[in-house]
């Protein structure tokens, strides 16, 4: 039997939710547990998971629409199954269905009353005779059509437009598949995994970004000092790992994961450093970075560089990260947005160090600057809780002698 996709009751007093976006499209194959769509209530944005596997069909609500709790928004249909009916009816409120997502309605809501009143009336789909004829002739699924006539009536023009779109799509596919020449490149295992994790990141984590410009004059002088006095060459990345670990210690909520609706704040600070290899992108981890000295971190970073160019990393090297730094400064990038490395709470994107004119005591001075952009999981933090971390990090970098 086709499985109904409906608007869940996410909070006990919720009567409707704003459908933010579909993460699956009409006709997509979905697996049980896939995130189907995102809902915004007055309290939060949540992803709603598929309760069954099959094809997602008959999407009746569109993005940014307000959807009443319990309203059927689509169906998940198994191979060979039919969509229940062309006539879309509002479903009966079903307490059992709602309880499946662990939110038991505790009071009778406005929606239930509305729904009971309206349960006998069905919403009729209007289709003009010629449109019906064309639908039959071209074997079009009526759910793929949007009516542009009065009362949403499907008219001939809608069918003709649909057919034109299909034709264009086929043309594009034909060009892509048969007319363009290409070289076949297989994805490496790392690229394949990275791809999956980035899909997960981009589609399931609501991310927001915070950005600060940071002066690196202090770091520059410190590096010169260490080199001259102690003969140690500390890279900027190493310094950044140290500074970040130090700030994370003060703002531990960024060193965290969301697990089954709970936040796990980690005691260890394990910083992954995004590193390009011949096989793809990896993030080897500087474990317990907050407890290491700059020299120890530098040793670890040197090791990463050697491994990246040769035999690669061990599982040990790559596991246990709680926060990631991605530095594209050496590639000449001014600033960029990094996607969070799930299940971490945030990722720091580091741009290149460059000279800029800045004001110091009201006088223009030349300064070395860079831009830090932090991507944050909005389910774990918000702007107000994430900002102090970034400001603290900025201060640490600008006054590097304060690092312990």
């Amino acid at each position, binding site marked *: 039997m086709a499985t109904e996709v409906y608007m869940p009751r996410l909070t006990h007093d919720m009567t409707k939710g704003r459908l933010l976006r579909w993460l699956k499209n009409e006709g997509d194959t979905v697996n049980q547990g896939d995130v189907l769509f995102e809902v915004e209530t007055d309290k939060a944005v949540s992803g709603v998971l598929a309760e069954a596997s099959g094809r997602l069909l008959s999407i009746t609500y569109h993005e940014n629409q307000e959807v009443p709790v319990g309203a059927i928004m689509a169906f998940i249909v198994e191979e060979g199954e039919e969509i229940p009916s062309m006539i879309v009816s509002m479903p009966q409120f079903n307490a059992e269905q709602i309880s499946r997502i662990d939110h038991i309605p505790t009071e009778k809501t406005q929606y239930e009353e509305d729904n009971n009143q309206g349960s006998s009336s069905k919403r009729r789909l209007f289709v*003009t*005779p*010629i*449109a*019906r*004829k064309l639908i039959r002739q071209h074997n079009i699924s009526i759910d793929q059509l949007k009516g*542009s*006539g*009065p009362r949403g009536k499907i*008219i*001939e*023009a809608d069918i003709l437009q649909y057919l034109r779109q299909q034709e264009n799509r086929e043309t594009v596919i034909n060009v892509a598949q048969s007319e363009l020449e290409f070289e076949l490149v297989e994805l490496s295992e790392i690229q394949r995994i990275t791809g999956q994790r980035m899909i997960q990141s981009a589609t399931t984590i609501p991310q927001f970004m915070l950005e600060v410009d940071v002066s690196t004059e202090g770091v520059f002088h410190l590096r010169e000092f260490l080199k001259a006095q102690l003969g140690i060459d500390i890279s900027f990345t190493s310094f950044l790992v140290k500074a970040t670990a130090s700030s994370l210690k003060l703002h531990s909520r960024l060193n965290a994961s969301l697990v089954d609706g709970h936040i796990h704040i980690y005691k260890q600070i394990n910083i992954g450093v995004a590193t390009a290899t011949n096989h793809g992108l990896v993030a080897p981890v500087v474990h317990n970075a907050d407890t290491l000295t700059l020299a120890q971190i530098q040793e670890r970073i040197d090791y990463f560089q050697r491994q990246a160019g040769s035999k690669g990393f061990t599982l040990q090297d790559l596991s246990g990260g709680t926060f990631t730094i991605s530095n594209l400064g050496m590639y000449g990038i001014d600033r960029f947005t990094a996607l969070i490395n799930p299940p971490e709470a945030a990722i720091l994107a580091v741009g290149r160090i460059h000279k800029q004119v800045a004001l110091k005591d009201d006088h223009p001075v030349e300064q070395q600057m860079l831009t830090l952009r932090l991507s944050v999981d909005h389910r774990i933090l918000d702007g107000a809780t994430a900002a102090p971390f970034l400001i603290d990090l900025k201060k640490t970098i600008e006054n590097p002698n304060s690092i312990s």
Partner: protein
Amino acid sequence: MSMPDKDISTRKLSYLMAIREAMQEEMRRDKNVILFGEDVERHGGGFGVSKELWEEFGDQQVRNMPISENCMAGLALGAAMTGCRPILEFMFMDFSALAIDQICNEAAKIHYMYGGQTNAPIVYRCPQGGLSYKSAGAHHSQSLEAWYVHVPGLKVVFPGTPYDAKGLLKAAICDPNPVVFIEHKALYNNEGIVPEDEYIIPLGKADVKRTGSSITVIAYGYMLQFALEAAEKLMPEGIDVEIIDPRTLNPFDEECFFESVRKTHRVVLIQEACRTGGVTAEWGMRIEEECFDWLDAPIVRVAGEDVPIPYAQSLEEKVWPNISKIIAAIKNVCYFN
């Protein structure tokens, strides 16, 4: 009879003169073609249509009648049954009501009642309609084609151009059974190309006055002018109107309607006559029966209001269809809002 190419000829004639020329040619061809009516001799009838015919054909073929429509129609029927081919002019179609028993109960049924042993080749020429005839009032402005369309045994013809008027009248005169030939008073002075060469337009054949792809507009009589004008105004907006003039209202050329509707999928029907019980209701219904699966919108009519025609010009103007009402209906049916 061959159909002359109307695109080659450049002779222009008014609707009135085209009707006169048709009568003249038929009266010359056949001395049994005779004209009856009020003041048809020297005065040329109510609107001067038959001027000069009495001078040419004399009393034998052109006769004034007393003001008694019932008597005139009875006389015409008797003449028809005894070998003449009378043309009977009513000064206003409105007054054909006085002759309706002779027309509908006698002439229309003669061929049937006598098992084909006799017939009544009569043409009833009926000037009707309003529009340019401002303030003609409730008794001189009506459009009454639906009365006669409803009678089996009568043919009803209503030309909308000079070319059609001549060709159709000649066909009506030649027809062995009674024909109600409606002339629109406001069209009498409209000019159009009418070739010198003889031609006849068969009854029951519609004419596509404008080919188009977006919508079928069926219009006749004076409404054809409005439809053509509306079509030109809609063209820049991307609505390409096909206009059909049925020309013969009964029997009407339904196949022509169907063919057009199966192409355009949308229909607007226009009649000057008041809406209720009008001929467009019949046509719309036939289209619905035969072309339902081709329709993309409801069949819509633009028609006169269901009121006696007012004397006051300000009210009179509101009664009839006009170009803006027609444009609105077409846009609505094309979902063009």
